[in-house]
C-alpha cells in the first residue's frame, strides 16, 4: 500500500492528509477527559510491569516563563492545574519573594491559608467522588460532588472565581476577605465535618467500597516510599510524618493549631480514610483562621525587577509537595523557573503499588494516588505467556473491574443499601 493511500485509510477518507487539516484522535483529543498512556505487562491476571508515557498535555510553561515578566508568570503558573490552581501561584510567589527584601503582611498570610485549605477540601471531595465512580458506587459520587459545590460557592464569594482564583500577588493577596463572611464559613465547615464523618462510616461499612478498597494495592514500606520520592498522602498513608505545612510552615500555618493525619494499613482504604480525616483537619483550620484573622494591610507593592539570585520553595498541595525553583539574573524576566508537581513525584510509587495486583484493581489503585491526569482512557495490555496484545479505554476497564467483583451488579438496578442523605 502506498503511503498516500495508507494515510487516507487512517483518516477514513474523510479529509485530505495535510498539515493544516490533520486531526489527531487518540490519547490527545479534547473529547477524552485527560490524555495519558500506560503500558501494562501482564502474566495471566497479575501485573508484572508498568511503563508510563506522560507529556500529552505538556505545554512548555517553563520555556514560556523565560520570556514573560515576573508578575505575568504568577498567573500563568496558576493555569498549570484546574483543581489545585492557587497553590501553584503561592509556591511560585514564595520562591520569588525569597529573593526580595519584603515581608508578607500577616493578614495576607491568613487569607492565603484560608484559600489553600478550601482548595484542599474541594480537591479531596472531588477525589472521593471519583473513587466512588470507579468502584461502581455512583451514589457516593453524586453526594460528594454536591457537597463540593458548597465549597466552590465559598471560594467564589471570597475570590470572585470558582477555579482560577487569581488571588495571589507578590508579597500579599489581591482581594481582601468580604465582610460578614465569618458565620457563613464556620457553618459550612461544620457541615463538611459532619459529612466527612458520614462518608467515613460509609467506606467502613458499605460492601462495594469494602470489596474494592480493602487490601487492594501492593504494600510498600516507609523506606521504599521515601526512596521512590513519594509525597503528600502517598507518604503519609504508610506512616511517614511528611507534610510541608508541619515541617516547614509557610503562610500562617505556624500560627494555626493543627496536626497531620497518618495511617499505617498501607492499602487503598487507608488513603480514603486519610483524605476524609484531612477534610476535618482542614475544616477546623479554616474555622480557626476566620475567627483569628488579624487586621491590617493585605499587600506590599514591590518593584517589577527582582534581584539576582536563586531560590526554591515548596508547599503542600492537596496531592502532596509541590516544588518551585527560580533563578534571576536581575532582569524583568526570570532566567529559569522549574516546577515539579506532586503527580510526577508519585508516579514511581504508583507503579510499585500496581505490581502483583489484578487487572480489575488497576482503576482503583491508579485513582488512589489522585493523579492529575485522572481517568485512564486508552491503555494497552501485553500478556507475557501468549504474547496477546490489546487496547482498552478507561470506561471498558472500569466496567471490567466492577464485573470482576460483582458479577450480578449489572442486572440489579439499585445495588446500594444506604439511605438517602440524612
Amino acid at each position, binding site marked *: 500500500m502506498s503511503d498516500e493511500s495508507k494515510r487516507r485509510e487512517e483518516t477514513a477518507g474523510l479529509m485530505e492528509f495535510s498539515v493544516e487539516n490533520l486531526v489527531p484522535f487518540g490519547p490527545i483529543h479534547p473529547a477524552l477527559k485527560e490524555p495519558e498512556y500506560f503500558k501494562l505487562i501482564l502474566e495471566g491476571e497479575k501485573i508484572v510491569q508498568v511503563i508510563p508515557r506522560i*507529556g500529552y498535555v505538556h505545554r512548555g510553561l517553563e520555556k514560556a516563563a523565560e520570556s514573560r515578566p515576573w508578575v505575568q508568570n504568577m498567573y500563568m503558573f496558576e493555569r498549570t492545574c484546574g483543581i489545585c490552581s492557587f497553590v501553584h501561584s503561592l509556591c511560585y510567589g514564595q520562591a520569588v519573594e525569597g529573593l526580595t527584601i519584603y515581608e508578607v503582611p500577616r493578614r495576607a498570610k491568613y487569607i492565603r491559608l484560608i484559600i489553600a485549605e478550601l482548595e484542599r477540601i474541594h480537591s479531596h471531595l472531588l477525589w472521593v467522588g471519583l473513587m466512588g465512580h470507579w468502584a461502581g458506587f455512583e451514589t457516593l459520587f453524586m453526594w460528594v460532588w454536591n457537597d463540593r459545590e458548597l465549597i466552590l460557592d465559598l471560594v467564589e464569594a471570597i475570590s470572585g472565581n470558582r477555579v482560577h482564583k487569581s488571588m495571589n500577588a507578590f508579597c500579599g493577596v489581591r482581594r481582601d476577605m468580604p465582610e460578614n463572611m465569618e458565620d457563613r464559613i464556620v457553618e459550612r465547615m461544620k457541615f463538611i465535618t459532619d459529612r466527612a464523618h458520614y462518608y467515613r462510616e460509609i467506606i467502613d461499612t458499605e460492601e462495594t467500597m469494602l470489596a474494592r478498597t480493602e487490601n487492594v494495592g501492593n504494600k510498600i514500606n516507609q523506606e521504599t516510599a521515601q*526512596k521512590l520520592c513519594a509525597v503528600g498522602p502517598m507518604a503519609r498513608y504508610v506512616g511517614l510524618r511528611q507534610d510541608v505545612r508541619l515541617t516547614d510552615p509557610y503562610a500562617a500555618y505556624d500560627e494555626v493549631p493543627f496536626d497531620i493525619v497518618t495511617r499505617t494499613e498501607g492499602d487503598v482504604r487507608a488513603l480514603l480514610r486519610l483524605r476524609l480525616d484531612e477534610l476535618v483537619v482542614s475544616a477546623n483550620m479554616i474555622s480557626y483562621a476566620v475567627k483569628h484573622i488579624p487586621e491590617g494591610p493585605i499587600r506590599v507593592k514591590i518593584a517589577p525587577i527582582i534581584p539576582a539570585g536563586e531560590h526554591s520553595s515548596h508547599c503542600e498541595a492537596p496531592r502532596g509537595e509541590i516544588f518551585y525553583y527560580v533563578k534571576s539574573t536581575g532582569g524583568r524576566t526570570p532566567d529559569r523557573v522549574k516546577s515539579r508537581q506532586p503527580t510526577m513525584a508519585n508516579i514511581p510509587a504508583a507503579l510499585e503499588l500496581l505490581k502483583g495486583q489484578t487487572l480489575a484493581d488497576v482503576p482503583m489503585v491508579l485513582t488512589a494516588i489522585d493523579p492529575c491526569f485522572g481517568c485512564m482512557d486508552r491503555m494497552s495490555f501485553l500478556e507475557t505467556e501468549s504474547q496477546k496484545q490489546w487496547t482498552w479505554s478507561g470506561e471498558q476497564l472500569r466496567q471490567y473491574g466492577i464485573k470482576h467483583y460483582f458479577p450480578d451488579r449489572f442486572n440489579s438496578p439499585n445495588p446500594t443499601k444506604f439511605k438517602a442523605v440524612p
Partner: protein
Amino acid sequence: MSENLLEQLQTYAAQSNSKVSVPRKGETFIDVDQGHIKEFISHVVNDLRILHLATITGLDLGENIGILYHFSQDKDTIQVRSTVPKAQSTAVSIVDIIPGAILYEMEIHDMFGVTFTGNPWINQKLLLPDNWPDDLPPPLLKTTKPAEIRKRLHLEVERK
C-alpha cells in the same frame, strides 16, 4: 541546619574537593564535579539519611549544563550542584541510590539532551512528542527558539 549536619556535609565535601556555600539561612549549596557525584549523593542518602529528593533541575549555563539535585529535610534544603559540558553531555545516573529519580532524569534528557548512564529508561521519551525530530536541539536550551519548534513540529498556524 544543625551544626552537626553541616559539619558532616563539609567532611564529605572535602573528600571530593567540593565547595560548600550557605547563601541564606537553611539553604546549602554544594558544588560537586561529575566524577564524585554518585559517591557524594550516596553519603547524603545512606549516611546522613536525607532521603527526600524533591526534584532534579536542569540549567542552561552557556558552555555547560547545570544539574541541581534538591534534597530537603524539614526546614533545610541541600542543593547538590554539578555541571556537564554541552558538547558531550553525559552524566552519571543516581537511580540505583534513589529509584524515584528515574522520571526526573528522563525529564532532563528530554529537555536538555543530557544522557544519564545507568538509567534503564533513558532512551524513551517522557514529555516530548513522538514526532520530535532528532536533529532539533532540546527545547529548554536558550538557543532553541519557540518559533523554530513550532515550525519543525508543523504547529504553525497561518495567520490571515
